[in-house]
Each structure stands twice: as C-alpha cells, then as structure tokens.
C-alpha cells in the first residue's frame, strides 16, 4: 500500500500540473462570458478557415503519406533509416523557424520563388500558405503512426499475397491498408489535431489576415491583445476539438491492438 502511494505522489503531481491550466481555461469565466466571447467577430471566419484548411491538409497528408509510410516501413538499410529520421525533423523544429524555412523555400524570394512566379503562383499570405504550413508540421505525425502500423503487419500475410500474384499497388490497397487501417486513422487524427493547433509557421509564412490566413490559433493570439474572454472561448473550442480527435486516436488504436493480438 505504502509502495503504491510513493509511486502515486509524483504521478499525481504531474497530472495535476497538466490538468490545472486546462481547468482554469474553462473555470475562470462564466458560461455567459464564454458565449459572448464566441460571438466575437473574429471567431466565425477563423473557425471556418481552420475547418477547411485542416480538412484539405489532412487529406493531402493521408493521400501522399500512405505510400511514403508503406515504402519506409518496407525499406531496409542505412539510407531508409536516415530518410525516416529526416522526415521526422519537422516535429522538433521550432514552428517559427519552420515558417522562415518555408519562406526561404517557397517565398517570393525563395529557392522555388522564381519558378512559381513564372507559373503565376504567389504562395505567401494566401490560404495555400496556411495549408502548406499545416502539411509541413503535421505530416511527420501521420508518417510515424503509419510506418509503425505497417511494420506490425505479419510478414507472412504479405508473402502469401505476393505468392498469389498481387501487384505492389493491390498489395498496399487491398491487403496492407485494411490491416493497418486503425493505425492509419489514429495517425490521421493526430496529424489533424497538430494542424489545428498550428501557429508559429502560419504566422511567419502565411501572415495574419481575417478570412484568408487567420486560423483559430492566430485569432486567439489577436484577441489576446484586446479581449481575453474571446481568446479564452476560442481556446476552449480548440481544446474540445482536440479532445475529440485524441479520443478517436484511442478508440482506433484499441481496435488495432485487439485485431492484431498481443504484440511480440
């Protein structure tokens, strides 16, 4: 019993530390104040923009991320593991730095700038820039989950499918993806949650313009300067959305574990 308590104390300390700020977010304003905060003119356009851009960026991440995660999960050797490490770097790069890097690459004066300009495409300060920033910071989360989901598929199933004459694309779409589906769904939800919260890279690369590039996190920052209650209300909306997505991750992963049985 005492042993259990000594373990519980540090754990409880950390849990309390993590939960208290979230509770303070909900508890320090009256429901009436929060409702009025949601009525702030910044909220509706930002909510719309966040919903559409994250839907687009998550779709891009999944469509392009599935084949890449599949390749990474099958590839062996030094170069493959180097590629996997490099593709995870956006997770640890500070978002503001990611924003500068995106400008240096796709800005008007960036590496790809002249080529884009020739095509008549200007990315910075556009909704496209918001989507690109979200893909950049969120895709690694999907790749990570996808690679580990594909790796947990029993190699024998792949061999059997191959021996029965399945082409590489049939193998991926008809065999591997259904088997890894819960892991892929979990990865997509994680990456969606990350895209929703994206702030630093968006501010740097896309700027802050109502209805065009001002997503929910940017609206929070803008409201913070003048109307704390509005900022608090938008934050709560984000927290609730993220909670729903993370709950989806848990359910998906739970089903995955059950379907595959105990891991070796």
């Amino acid at each position: 019993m005492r042993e259990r308590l000594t373990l519980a104390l540090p754990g409880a300390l950390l849990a309390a530390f993590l939960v208290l700020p979230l509770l303070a977010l909900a508890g320090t304003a009256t429901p009436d104040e929060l409702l009025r905060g949601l009525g702030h003119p910044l909220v509706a356009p930002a909510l719309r923009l966040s919903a559409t851009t994250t839907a687009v960026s998550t779709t891009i991440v999944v469509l392009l991320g599935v084949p890449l995660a599949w390749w990474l999960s099958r590839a062996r050797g030094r170069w493959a593991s180097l590629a996997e490490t490099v593709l995870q770097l956006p997770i640890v790069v500070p978002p503001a730095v990611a924003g500068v890097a995106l400008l240096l690459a796709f800005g008007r004066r960036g590496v790809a700038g002249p080529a884009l300009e020739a095509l008549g495409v200007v990315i910075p300060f556009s909704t496209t820039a918001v989507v690109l920033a979200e893909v950049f910071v969120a895709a690694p989360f999907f790749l990570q989950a996808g690679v580990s989901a594909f790796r947990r598929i029993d190699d024998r199933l792949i061999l059997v499918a191959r021996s029965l004459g399945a082409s590489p694309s049939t193998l991926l779409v008809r065999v591997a993806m259904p088997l890894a589906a819960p892991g892929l769904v979990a990865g997509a939800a994680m990456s969606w949650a990350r895209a929703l919260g994206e702030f630093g890279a968006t501010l740097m690369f896309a700027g802050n313009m109502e209805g065009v590039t001002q997503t929910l996190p940017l609206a929070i920052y803008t409201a913070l300067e003048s109307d704390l209650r509005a900022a608090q209300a938008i934050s709560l909306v984000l927290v609730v959305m993220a909670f729903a997505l993370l709950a989806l991750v848990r359910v998906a992963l739970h089903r995955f574990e059950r379907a595959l049985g105990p891991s070796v």
Partner: protein
Amino acid sequence: MTRGAWMALTLVAGVAACTRTVEPPKEQALVVFAATSLREPFTALARDFSQAHPGVTITFNFAGTQELRAQLLQGAVADVLASADTRSMGELVRSGHVESPALLAKGEPVVVVSRHAAATITDFAALPRAGTIVIGGPEVPIGRYTAQILARADAKLGGSFAARVQERVVSREPNVKQVLAKVRMGEADAGVVYRSDTVGVLELSVVAIPAELNVVAEYPIAITTAPPHPAMARAFVELARSPAGQAALQRAGFLPQGGG
C-alpha cells in the same frame, strides 16, 4: 521512508527552490522591464550605470509592452517600467502598479520598403503602388498609429488613399518585428514600423512619413509602486532622461523628449 517517497520529496523541494530563486531580485540587482525596441539603448545605458554605481547590476526583461503589462498585473516584481505606449502605462497607473510616469523618448513611424520595390516607392504618396503591404494589427500600438496616419493621409491627399493602401494589405501582424521581418525578406513590398527598428538593417530602404501626416509614439518611463531598490530606480530613470541617456536613445533611432 521508501526511496520513492524520498524521490518525490526531492522533486517537490526542487520545484519549491526554483520558485524561490526566481522571485525577489538580489540585493543590488535593479530589475528593469522595458519594451523590446529599447533593448539597444538600455543595454548601453546599463554599462554607464554600473560604472557610476559599482556593485549594482541591472537585470532587464525586454518584451512587448502588452506582455510586460500582463506580467506586472500578474504580480511580477520590478523596479522600473519603460513602455512603448502611454495607454498601457496609463492602465498600470490606474491599477496602482506604477507611479508618475515621465516622457522618456518619442518614436517616429516610417515606411520601410523592400529592396525590390525601392525604385517604385520613393516617397509616402507612392505607398499605394506597392504590390503587397503588411501593417500592425489594430490591437498593437504600431497598428493603431498606422490607422491614424492613413486616416490623415486620406483627408490631406484625397484620392481614397487609405482604401487604396488597405487593398494592398495582405497581413495584419501581431507585433512590429513581424512587419519588419516580412519586408526585410522581400515577401512584402512595404510596411510601417518605427525608425528605431530600422537602425542597422541593410536589406530595406526607409521612406519618411511627412510630418503633417505622421503621429508620434510616446515612450514613458516610471518607477513601480513597490520598488525593491527605490534609490537605484530613481537614479536609473534620471540617467535615461539625462543628456547622456537621450544621446544613446537618439543613436538608436529615437527622437529626444523635446523633439518630434
């Protein structure tokens, strides 16, 4: 007691120790909260100050005026506050956190133009010819000043000047450094910042705003209501407002108290 309990206790003690060391400033360490734009001149002044008062060091907290205000309201301990607008200072006077502010310096809003647009925008009247413009948001001081300048220009220059500029605005940045960064990188053609932000920046050209259209940003300085080092705090404010202090501010691109 088990090892786990000791570990937990050490952890708690560690956290407690950390909070203790942060709070009260040391015996002779004057704590100055100052707007980010004052970093250069204040760092220079700190050297003069330490020479005149051996044994006294200055700990600076440079941040956006909005952040400094929030920190003081949440109970941060400081001796001196220098802010980038009179509005935040006035609020802190009313809430009883600082006393009797005095004018420290004045800031001059200017138009900055990226290298690539320098040939097109050579004076303020040409601003609507910029392809893309970034300005401060309406909630930050530079954004409020920009709106006032545009309103005056609209009245004086006519030709729906303000509307033509607003048409080109692609972003309303939450602080002046973001405006500067975007023009500096050439992503936006023009923006409005303070002259002090442009000192030593080579990648852009500076276009003055005609005096009859411009507004002047006032930087006030004040001592907190409960300074840990009242005598030193007074000495620092006096130094900043002395001719030597004003010269340092002028070198950093500010206008002296009497100018502007």
